[in-house]
């Protein structure tokens, strides 16, 4: 094997994402979103998706983000920290579908979201976090006092697929990122059965600085790169 399979066609890269799939999608405020993969997923149009992503608020100056999957009515459930814009001036497709009872939403504090994803990738069965104690995010959760401080029990979040955005990959799938486009992509890479990374370029193994690799290739199963 020469390394991880490299795709130039985004629809081919997302083969296997079918109705009912759970899909993690990297990005924060439309930075670090795997744009081509998200657009291809819209075109493939599987139904009843569960989407795990930081934000689905849209409105980032026309940049592509996951809100377009909600708008295309492909999503049954969203798990996110920032599902709607702060402003109430616009009623987003997500809010419309929520009001109509057509979509489910789980709002998770951003750090808990990241840690639940990391836990799935790291084989942790559950963890106690101080975030959210005494708030609506504690509802229905086990509270445990440890050394006099209260914590909530949180469970891992895994997915069938993770669509992530890297900067460069090598042929083994090792990834580096660029600035704040890193965000949720590294933990998501670890937490899916199939991780698909959209990158600007694939370089020969050995061309990335081994000290600077952020996501080891073991976590990356397919690469999408421009022709």
């Amino acid at each position, binding site marked *: 094997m020469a390394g991880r399979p490299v795709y130039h066609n985004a629809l081919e890269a997302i083969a296997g994402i079918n109705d009912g799939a759970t899909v993690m999608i990297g990005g*924060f*405020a439309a930075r670090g979103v795997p744009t081509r993969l998200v657009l291809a997923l819209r075109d493939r149009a599987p139904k009843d998706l569960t989407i795990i992503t930081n934000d689905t608020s849209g409105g980032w100056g026309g940049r592509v983000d996951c809100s377009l999957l909600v708008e295309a009515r492909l999503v049954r459930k969203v798990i996110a*920290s920032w599902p*709607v814009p702060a402003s109430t001036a616009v009623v987003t497709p997500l809010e419309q579908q929520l009001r109509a009872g057509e979509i489910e939403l789980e*709002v998770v504090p951003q*750090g808990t979201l990241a840690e639940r994803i990391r836990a799935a990738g790291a084989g942790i069965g559950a963890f106690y976090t101080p975030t*959210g*104690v005494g*708030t609506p995010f504690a509802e229905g959760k086990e509270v445990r006092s440890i050394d006099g401080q209260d914590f909530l029990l949180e469970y891992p979040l895994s997915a069938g697929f993770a669509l992530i955005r890297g900067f460069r990959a090598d042929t083994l799938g090792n990834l580096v990122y660029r600035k704040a486009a*890193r965000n949720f992509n590294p933990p998501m890479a670890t937490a899916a059965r199939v991780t698909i990374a959209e990158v600007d370029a694939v370089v020969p193994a050995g061309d990335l600085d081994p000290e600077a690799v952020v996501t080891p290739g073991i976590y990356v199963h397919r690469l999408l790169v421009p022709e």
Partner: protein
Amino acid sequence: MNKERLPRDVLAMRIAKELEDGSYVNLGIGQPTLVANYIPPEKLVIFHSENGVIGVGPMPEPEDEDPDLCNAGGQPVTTIAGACFVSHADSFALVRGRHLDVAVLGGLQVSETGDLANWIRPGRGVGGIGGAADIARGAKRIYVMMEHTTKDGERKIVRRCDYPLTGQGVVHTIFTDLAVIRVTPQGLVLLEVAPGWTPEEVQALTEPHLTVSPDLREIAL
């Protein structure tokens, strides 16, 4: 009430004065970001943005915007020399692990026991928590920056928050356009008042009892 309240930028200057040399600080979305504009050059304050930027610099000119670089509010930013980038998992490990010296957060309501509500109004069925709950619980000190009352004149410093909470018992100090108030185990202590305001006038706009500090001062920059 026609007396003058502190303008936002003056409030930001007052909070900037509070930040110590060498400290790591997170600034919440919205008005707290103004604080970064008033750190004097001789003082090093390193700003953390929860989307994985440690060492946030000033906003760029439009032509210098980097498409891959923003703050927690999605606004384009720059970075300082010595900045670095981490993932969300690592960024919130830092937050949750109590490594940030201070976070300056906006507030809808603060209670007399330091509860903070700042993410959703009761009427709205859906809202975004973002990183607020983690940061409210994680930073060593939470400074709240807000107007003392709502536009409609309602009190925001209350006995008990009736808005959904962001964090329970987390606020260290409240900085408003009228006062600086410390949350203590004995209740709220009024440390400073805006020029021209008396403790009684501030108390009238504050639901819980304020203990006036023996060292009460006028807010100064």
